[in-house]
């Protein structure tokens, strides 16, 4: 590879790198340098430490729940044959379509005093509401449960891949040495798959740390909630910046650990001789137990909350006022954001092909945006606004919001395009250049058609991610530009859950599209 020489073609990617990286850099700078506002001691004792501890304990409980849900499910789905196994194989990914805040609304209603669970309990036992203990969702474990139930598929996907990559020979060797089903899992399969499982867990925890909506709705004081509240109170800008710094550090640690573990799913032995695809049969009783386990997970994490929202929408004949303008502004913001983030992702992907330095820079910046929670990026944009002396209104606000979208989601767009490119032969570029194709011509004739399948997936993912985004949209949207997510959250926190159901269901419906795409891709790779 020739030494990198500055050229005109490096300018657009460099500009975009700056654009994508700026919000998180501003937020970090503000967090480190600080400024006016309360004293450091006050922030540390009254804000930073309690918010951080709440966040970390939520993540800890969520990690345990996610492992408990995902690892056994992944193991039985890869290892055994039981009724419904094929459906569960992909259905266990569906909860990813639910944003944490929607899951929180649904379960808060299901578990409320007037909700179906407690009503049934009272009917059966004859007790009154004060006479029994019932788990409270509006707590740290409650938030952890809500986040874990939407994010555990990250762990499930990596665990399943790691389990199915272990050759059957390894497992059969263990069995020939006298290992029963229990030993097989604890002494062989789990230790070998552990790096991959931890990698998936870290990604899920990074997403959980970025949550704002569920924590705010459930009244749990996490860092994400703290940032938005501190900013809204206007007096405490400095606190917001310090909290953001802490949150970014936590998220980055998870991202770095996840990347360290990526692709290290044990020793990849590649014998095909012994990879009989057959799964072990179970005795009828155990098989139904496996079915029951998977069905329960899907019921709790997907079917029950959605059924409850649908029931609420139908039962109360809930109307969401102004649905049409709401859809319009959501679609418009989504389309502009998708268009720009897509352009940035495309330029990143192509630039990464051309130069090693640009490749590293784009990776780093895209990852920084990906790991930085929306609340942090929103804060960075607001600091930028304050420095320029503009006010948050009209097109300035929209431009700022779209900027944050691009910063946060460009990496989500790069990933599928890069995956498409990685599957192509390495010398394709040289071949096309040897045929006299360069510059724009190469882009139109070679790069774009090749990247197209990945690009379509990228556009879909970007649109849905922007649609689901809550904290930054909440912080930056100008008057009259509410999105579905913002409105649903406003109704839900206002205890008008009935009105929140329709926008929530629309978000889930949109969220299902990329999840189904992902599940289709996973099945396709597993079959080959």
């Amino acid at each position, binding site marked *: 590879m020739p030494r990198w020489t500055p050229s005109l073609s490096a300018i657009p990617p460099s500009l975009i790198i700056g654009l994508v990286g700026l919000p998180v850099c501003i937020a970090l700078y503000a967090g480190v340098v600080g400024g006016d506002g309360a004293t450091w001691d006050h922030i540390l004792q009254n804000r930073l430490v309690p918010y951080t501890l709440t966040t970390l304990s939520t993540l800890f409980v969520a990690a345990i729940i996610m492992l408990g849900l995902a690892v056994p499910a992944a193991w039985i789905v890869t290892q055994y044959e039981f009724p419904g196994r094929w459906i569960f194989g992909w259905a266990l990914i569906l909860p990813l379509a639910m944003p944490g805040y929607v899951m929180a609304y649904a379960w808060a209603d299901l578990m409320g005093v007037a909700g179906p669970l407690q009503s049934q309990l009272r009917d059966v036992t004859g007790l009154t509401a004060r006479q029994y203990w019932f788990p409270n969702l509006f707590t740290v474990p409650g938030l952890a449960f809500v986040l874990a139930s939407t994010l555990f598929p990250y762990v499930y996907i990596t665990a399943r891949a790691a389990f199915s990559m272990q050759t059957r020979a*390894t497992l059969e*060797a*263990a*069995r*020939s*040495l006298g290992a*029963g089903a229990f030993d097989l899992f604890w002494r062989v399969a789990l230790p070998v798959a552990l790096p991959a499982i931890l990698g998936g867990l870290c990604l899920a925890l990074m997403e959980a740390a970025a949550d704002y909506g569920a924590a705010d709705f459930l009244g749990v004081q996490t860092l994400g909630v703290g940032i938005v509240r501190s900013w809204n109170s206007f007096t405490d800008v400095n606190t917001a910046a310090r909290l953001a710094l802490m949150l970014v550090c936590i998220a980055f640690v998870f991202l770095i650990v996840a990347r360290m573990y990526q692709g290290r799913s044990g*020793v990849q*032995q590649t014998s095909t001789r012994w990879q009989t695809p057959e799964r072990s049969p179970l005795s009828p009783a155990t098989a139904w137990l496996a079915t029951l386990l998977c069905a329960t997970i899907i019921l709790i994490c997907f079917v029950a909350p959605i059924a409850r929202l649908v029931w609420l929408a139908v039962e109360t004949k809930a109307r969401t006022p102004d649905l049409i303008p709401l859809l319009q502004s959501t679609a418009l913001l989504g389309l502009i954001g998708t268009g720009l983030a897509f352009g940035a992702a495309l330029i990143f992907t192509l630039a990464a092909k051309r130069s090693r330095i640009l490749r590293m820079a784009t990776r780093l910046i895209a990852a920084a945006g990906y790991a930085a929670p929306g609340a942090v990026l929103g804060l960075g944009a607001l600091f930028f606004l304050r420095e320029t002396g503009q006010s948050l209104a009209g097109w300035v606000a929209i431009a700022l919001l779209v900027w944050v979208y691009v910063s946060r989601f460009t990496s989500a767009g790069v990933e599928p395009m890069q995956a498409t490119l990685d599957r192509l032969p390495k010398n394709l570029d040289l071949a096309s250049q040897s045929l006299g194709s360069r510059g724009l011509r190469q882009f139109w004739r070679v790069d774009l058609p090749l990247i197209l399948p990945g690009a379509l997936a990228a556009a879909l993912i970007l649109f849905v991610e922007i649609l689901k985004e809550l904290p930054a949209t909440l912080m930056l949207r100008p008057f009259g530009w509410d999105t579905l997510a913002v409105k649903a959250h406003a109704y839900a926190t206002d205890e008008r859950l009935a009105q929140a159901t329709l926008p929530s269901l629309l978000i889930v419906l949109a969220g299902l599209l990329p999840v189904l795409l992902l599940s289709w891709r996973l099945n396709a790779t597993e079959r080959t």
Partner: protein
Amino acid sequence: MAAIRPLIADQVSRSFGTTAAVNAASLTLNPGEITALIGHSGSGKTTFLRLLAGMERPDQGQILSGDTVLANANQHVPIEKRNIGLVFQDFALFPHMTAAENVMFGLRNVPKPERRQLAEQWLDRLGLAHRRDAYPHHLSGGEQQRTAIARALAPKPVAILLDEPFSGLDPLMRDRVREAALNAVREAGVPALLVTHDASEALVHADSIAVIDKGKILQTGTPDTLYNRPLSLEVAQALGPIHSIDAAALPDAWRTVIGVSADTLRYRPEAVQLGHGVPVTVRGSKLAGAITEVALSFGGDETVYAACQPGAPLHPGDQIEASINPSLVFDFTPKSS
């Protein structure tokens, strides 16, 4: 210690869908002997090994250890209860355990303090004393395979089954690893099955050989019997090169020596010996390692092939003489009575 018993497959069949992978196969593995099972890929040799190990259940027939039934149509002792050692082509070591820990895995019935000692003894015996604490990804292929053999033998199995154990190894080290590994297997004194597609490996190292084709075991016997007295063309082909010739094209002298009874004859190339005999013309020769393959003609269109070590280089057109060794000429035409 209980006497070591043979491992017996008795008329065992196993089908996948409509294809019979193993079809009424019978084979007895005797203690202290290495039995090679050879066949090309898809012949059913791996399925047969899996049936013996307990990874597959037979549709018909039974598998016995001495007189104890391991599997038949009604019962099936699962793999983890059979105590049969397995060695795989890709070693299948546990990647998260050291060599010693791998060997200790199957020693659950041994008191803890002795486990490590026993594992180390096995590793020492296979020449891996200095690699005890290495992880599999730090071991060479040969070291991994010797660890796998130690792991399979340490729990004192009732039999050991090796599936293409040496074909994944670098040819340079294959011989040394094979020697060490098979010596350890033989010393263990248990019935051993060596599944391989390498005829020379089977001929050199096995005490007896079984040839499997399309799920059927065609012939079982000593290497000498199978190479020199194959009962069918398939068996003859499985063990080494074989050529066919139209009997009518042979010179009279050879026909007399052979005692021709069929139209088409098969012969091993080393049956044709250069030296005194009938005059032949060299059509071509090529060096194939220790031996030279020579194509000869009697003057007609027919070509005979010889594998030999000629004293001097041969050139097309050279006139020499050749004789035939009738014991390496076979007639596989079905006998009509």
